[in-house]
């Protein structure tokens, strides 16, 4: 009963965040465009050799996602900080986890939408040949995104309320995401090549473990950091 009420609150936060985001399209458009831009820059840096591009595709794609997606997280709290909305948000008789869950879900949808634009562009620009393993590669993408977004949402709850928030968030977040970057890039390149080494499974398990550990940890820790 109380739980159903809390889920309605989570839905309300997702609805509010996404409605706001939809109405100020500037945010989404510029984040997605930045992702595409980073891919293009990688293409220039790596040169036009198709083989080199194909090898670097997964890594470049993930860097494009990290560097563009990281802009979304502070935005989602900036919305609360303008005009003192955060204070009101914290005064509703709702447990703190509902706020984190709502922010997390909204950010997840946001980043997945960015990926829906950036991934096809990467496939075209880096001349990725389609072989087997599309579906598992999407699964890897999803797992990596969950890890990325849960930690990003968590760290942004602090960084957005500190001095120098633009630089603090990547400084805190990116070192933590090195396992996600390694596992996602390795697993997706391996899967797109038909998993010749049979190593994708281990990476997927690592990603899944990372997600479980840090989703739980950030839910637990959010209670402590949002209050002060």
């Amino acid at each position, binding site marked *: 009963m109380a739980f159903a*009420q809390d889920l*309605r*609150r989570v*839905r*309300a*936060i997702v*609805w*509010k965040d996404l*409605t*706001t985001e939809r*109405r*100020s399209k500037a945010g989404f458009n510029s984040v997605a465009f930045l992702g595409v831009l980073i891919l293009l820059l990688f293409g220039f840096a790596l040169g036009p050799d198709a083989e080199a591009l194909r090898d670097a595709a997964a890594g470049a794609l993930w860097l494009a996602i990290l560097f563009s997606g990281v802009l979304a997280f502070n935005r989602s709290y900036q*919305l609360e900080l*303008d*005009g*003192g*909305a*955060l*204070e*009101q*948000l*914290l*005064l*509703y*008789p*709702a*447990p703190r986890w509902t706020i984190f869950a709502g922010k997390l879900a909204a950010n997840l949808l946001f980043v997945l939408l960015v990926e829906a634009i950036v991934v096809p562009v990467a496939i075209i620009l880096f001349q990725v040949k389609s072989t087997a393993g599309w579906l598992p590669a999407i699964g890897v993408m999803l797992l990596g995104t969950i890890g990325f977004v849960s930690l990003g949402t968590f760290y942004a709850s602090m960084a957005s309320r500190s001095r120098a928030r633009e630089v603090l968030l990547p400084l805190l977040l990116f070192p933590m995401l090195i396992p996600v970057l390694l596992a996602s890039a390795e697993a997706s390149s391996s899967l797109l090549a038909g998993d010749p080494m049979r190593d994708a499974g281990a990476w997927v398990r690592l990603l899944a473990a990372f997600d479980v550990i840090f989703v739980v940890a950030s839910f637990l820790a959010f209670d402590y950091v949002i*209050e002060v």
Partner: protein
Amino acid sequence: MNSPGQTLKLSGLARRFGMRWALRGVSLEVEPGEVVGIMGHNGSGKSTLLRVVSTALRPSAGEGWVFGKHLVREAVEVRSHIGFLAHSPGLYDDLTATENLIFAARMLGVPEAQIPAALERVGLAREANERVRGFSAGMQRRLALARMTLGSPGLLLLDEPYNNFDPQGIELVNEVIQDARRGGGAALVVLHDKRQGERVLDRIVELGRGAVIGTNAVDGMMAVATAGPA
């Protein structure tokens, strides 16, 4: 020592920010239907007091109860009894007036059916479907007032509700407080000019340097001075 029938009881409440004590032991009791004005110079701790009572800030020392619920240990229950009008309106600019209240109603868990009436009450019925971004400061304050009354909380906390408000706005604040009082609700109102709230205030507590330095009954009102620990 705390009864559920009592709206608010504070005992030795203190709060520090870094090395500065904004509150230094405030004790106060408020009965149902009582409207208490809080006055004092800038930096005397008025806003801090409201924010501690609202559970937005934890007290550094001392205790408090709202309807018998402890401010720290039962903060979630306390929040369901409180309506807070802060300095800043705390609205979402890209949502319409109605949508802002829908969000609040869903977070509070109260029926959305009361929203049209709440907007009507603060005179925003015609602007219900306009985005808050285009609202003047006064209109935003009105909308925040409407949000505060959603779910008819038993304790209203208003932080300088009269400031920079036109005469109709001041009248509206007093009517909203009067409405709440008729339903048994109490209110703490931070204000600078007591004439603005004279009509609704039962007594005025004066803060100085984070402590209660005086309690006055407002003329024409039956007021019981209950400052200090019983």
